[in-house]
Each structure stands twice: as structure tokens, then as C-alpha cells.
């Protein structure tokens, strides 16, 4: 198999105040995979993804992106390869117009002229937000902001798209738009969430992280079926879903 897109080996990290955030993380993500990163609040999910694009440096262990180690000299290329979509789109959409915001990344990569225009148009079209190009970000709906911030990252043509809680604050229709967009995008994806049903809908593989360690890594269906595992790591399916699973032989409504 080719180089994994993300290869993390023996990664440890603790914050300056001594709080241990990550311990002995080993994680491989291969091209074309869509992986959910699950875990309770404070498990280390965000700390882990900030290592993938070099905002945090590994204290011990290594992080490699498509064969390129995360080191200070490689930072720009690493940040092109790893596209991070933040939780609050208002943090990410800082330029006066959608067009300029989507241009921000490619311009930092040195693109100009026709090449830049094409890159931006393709990214806007991929997220179906081309008609918003001239709008100011503060006048968009939350769902639109989410997709525009993804377009800004896709315009850098990343090898992996990393999304931090992409479904938070979305109404059901915007959530569905997002699902379609993610499934349609032809890029490796790592989706940080505690929305287990969303993981099941979108990601064939899931990884659970808790207290800075990876505690499960496997098919999303199997992981979500393991109620004891979920409960041990403060994850839970919505109440009604659990009941359905417990009562597989309930009477058929038509009969």
C-alpha cells in the first residue's frame, strides 16, 4: 500500500501547565478513507488534529503527512496537504467577501491570475456555494458559512480534509446538505464529532479517543453496537435508537 495520508507514531503531548493531552497515539489513515474521530469533551481530539498540520509540534513521536514529516521547514506544504475546518465558521471566514476568503489559502501558496480563479471557482462549485461569491460572510446563514469555510480549505487542494465538529449548530436540512457535500468530495476525510449517528452515516471507520489515548479503532457499525465500550467512554447514541436496538423482534406495524 502507498504511504498513508496520515501516519502518527508514538505521539505524546502535554500542555505547558503539565496537563497530559495525548499519550502514545498511533494512527494511520489511508487515501480515500473517511474516518470519524469520536470522544467525549476534553479527550484530546482537537489537540490531536492540531498536530496534523503542525500547529502543535510532537513532543515525542512523529507525525507524517503523505511521507512528509511535520517539521518547521515543511510547514507551508504540510498546511496545504492537511485542510483544517474549524468548529466555528466565524473564526475561519475573516476576509470581507466569500470570494476573497476562498482565495486566501491559494494566494498564500503563491497562486495568481487564471490559475487562482479556477481554483476558487472549482472549490465554490464543489460545495455548491458559487452564487455566494460576492457576499460578505456576516450575511450568510450558518449552514452556508460552514460550506464556505470548507470551500476555503478545499481551494488548497488538500490531501486530507479534517473537520472539527462539522454538524454542531446545523439544522437538519443544513446537516443533510453537509452530508451530501462530504460524501461527494473526492478527498480523504477525518471528521471529529460526538454525533455518533453522523459518524455512522458518513464514516465507514471510527476511532475513539479518551483521556489522550486511542481506545478503539474499527468499523463504525461494530463500534456503535458495543454499548459497553460507548458507555465506558462517555459516548451514547440518542435514547430512542438504543431502545430500537434492544428490541429487534418488536411486532411489525403492518402485521
Amino acid at each position, binding site marked *: 500500500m502507498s504511504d498513508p495520508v496520515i501516519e502518527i507514531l508514538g505521539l505524546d503531548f502535554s500542555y505547558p501547565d503539565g496537563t497530559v493531552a495525548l499519550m502514545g497515539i498511533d494512527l494511520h489513515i489511508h487515501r480515500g478513507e473517511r474516518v470519524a474521530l469520536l470522544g467525549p469533551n476534553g479527550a484530546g481530539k482537537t489537540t490531536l488534529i492540531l498536530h496534523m498540520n503542525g500547529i502543535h509540534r510532537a513532543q515525542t513521536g512523529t507525525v507524517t503527512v503523505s511521507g512528509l514529516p511535520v517539521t518547521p521547514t515543511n510547514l507551508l506544504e504540510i498546511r496545504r496537504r492537511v485542510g483544517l475546518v474549524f468548529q466555528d465558521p466565524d473564526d475561519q471566514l475573516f476576509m470581507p467577501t466569500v470570494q476573497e476568503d476562498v482565495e486566501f*489559502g491559494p494566494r498564500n501558496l503563491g497562486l495568481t491570475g487564471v490559475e487562482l480563479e479556477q481554483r476558487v471557482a472549482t472549490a465554490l462549485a464543489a460545495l455548491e456555494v458559487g452564487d455566494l461569491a460576492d457576499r460578505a*460572510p456576516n*450575511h450568510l446563514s450558518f449552514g452556508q458559512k460552514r460550506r464556505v469555510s470548507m470551500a476555503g480549505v478545499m481551494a*488548497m487542494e488538500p490531501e486530507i480534509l479534517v473537520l472539527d465538529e462539522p454538524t454542531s449548530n446545523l439544522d437538519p436540512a443544513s446537516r443533510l446538505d453537509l452530508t451530501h457535500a462530504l460524501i461527494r468530495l473526492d478527498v480523504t476525510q477525518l471528521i471529529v464529532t460526538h454525533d455518533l449517528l453522523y459518524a455512522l452515516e458518513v464514516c465507514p471507520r471510527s476511532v475513539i479517543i479518551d483521556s489522550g489515548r486511542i481506545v478503539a479503532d474499527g468499523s463504525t457499525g461494530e463500534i456503535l453496537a458495543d454499548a459497553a465500550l460507548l458507555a465506558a467512554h462517555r459516548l451514547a447514541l440518542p435514547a430512542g435508537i438504543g431502545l430500537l436496538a434492544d428490541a429487534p423482534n418488536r411486532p411489525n406495524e403492518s402485521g
Partner: protein
Amino acid sequence: MSGAHGHALYVHARSPLHRLAPQVKVVSALVLLFAVISTPRQAFWAFAIYAAVLAALAAVSRVPIRFLLSRMLVAAPFVLLALLFPIVGSGPRVDVIGLSLSQAGLWDMWNLLAKSLLGLLTAIVLGATTEVADLLRGLSALRVPGLVTSILGFMVRYVDVIIGDLTRMRLALAARGHHPTSIRDWAPYGKAVGAMFIRTYERGERVYLAMESRGYSGRMPDSEAAEAGRREWLLGLVPAMLAWAVALTARMAT
């Protein structure tokens, strides 16, 4: 509030003034402003011409008069202040409909009112015909340092976000029974502003992380402002040049 496009000062319309390159509009507005300010206050006719020029520009811009007038209200405190000058002013006094007013004060009032209202009208027409993003592009075309235009851009981008946060905080205070009736009830606002400061600071950090994640390395990418041609500059500067001709004539005549 404005529509989906642009800021609250912008009026969406198609007019030659809307199409004019932003850098030309900025320079023209500034030059016109200086002409107005440097005009001797006795030259009533000069101010009448400035008002006519601005009225013509406003008509060309297709910005509704109601909009212009409502935006002029921002000058109300200065107008009130100016109205006090003749009453509190010293020196020889004149009787106007039974009131004894200071002559010098009347002149000061007229000077302040005429110049500030004309200046304000210029700024309003500029704002109503130029989107913020274009204004920033215009400023960078005029070689205003990138740091300054980015700070202005961030300010415009986040002012709504911050106002939204503040509004929600005030609602949250009211929802838990905060009902200010006197200045002594304002203490929670102070705490809210403190909390806002920390939130905004933290947002700044997150925005910076997001910028770094998309390859930011200390320099904003240059925005490519459309070049304004010689013809556009000449046409765009006509009102400002006219104003200067009037101002110079007025100076020589007095």
C-alpha cells in the same frame, strides 16, 4: 439594516458612482472635503455651490434622499452643540426674533454647521456607493499599508459578530430578571463587557490559528485592485476640482 449585500451604509444600485473605481472615489472625496474646510465662512455662495455639487452627485448615485437624510442624523449631537454657540458666545450681540445672540457665536455656528454637514454628506455618498471590500481594495491601490487595511477589514468583518455576542449577553441578563432602572444597576454590564473582552481575545487567537492553517505567514496576500485608467481619474475628480476652483475663488474674493 442593509440587505444581504454589504454594510448598513451601502445602498445597492447601479450608477456611474457605484461603478467608479474606489480609489478614485476616496481621493475625490478627500480632495473635496479639504476644499470645503478651507473655504472662508463668509463665502455663502461657495457653500451653496458645494451643496449643489453634492446634491447632483447624490442624484447621480440614485441613493434615496430619505436614506441620506436618515444617515445625516448621526450629526445631531454636533448640530445641538453648534446651536449653543450664539447663546453662550461673547462679544457684540444682535437681536434675532427677540433673542440676544452673540455675533461671533453665530458665525461659529454657521461655520461648523456648513462644513460638518457638507463633509458628512460627502462621506455618506461615498459609503452608500462603495462596498467595504471595494473600499479596502481602493485603499490598498492607494498604497495604504496592508497592515492598516487588514485591521480595517477585520474590524468590519467582526463588528457584527461582537454586536451579536453583546446582544445575546444583554438578553441573557434580561432573561434572568436584570431590569436596569438607574445607573447603579449597570454593574452587570461592566462584567459583561469584561467577559466580552476575553471572548473577543480568544476569538482573535482562533482566527489566527485558522489563518495559519491556510498558510498565513505574517503577510496578507495582496488583493488585486482593478487599475483605474486616466479617463476614470479625470472624470472622477471633476467634482473635487470644481470644489477647489470655488474654494480658491472664495479665498481670493475675501
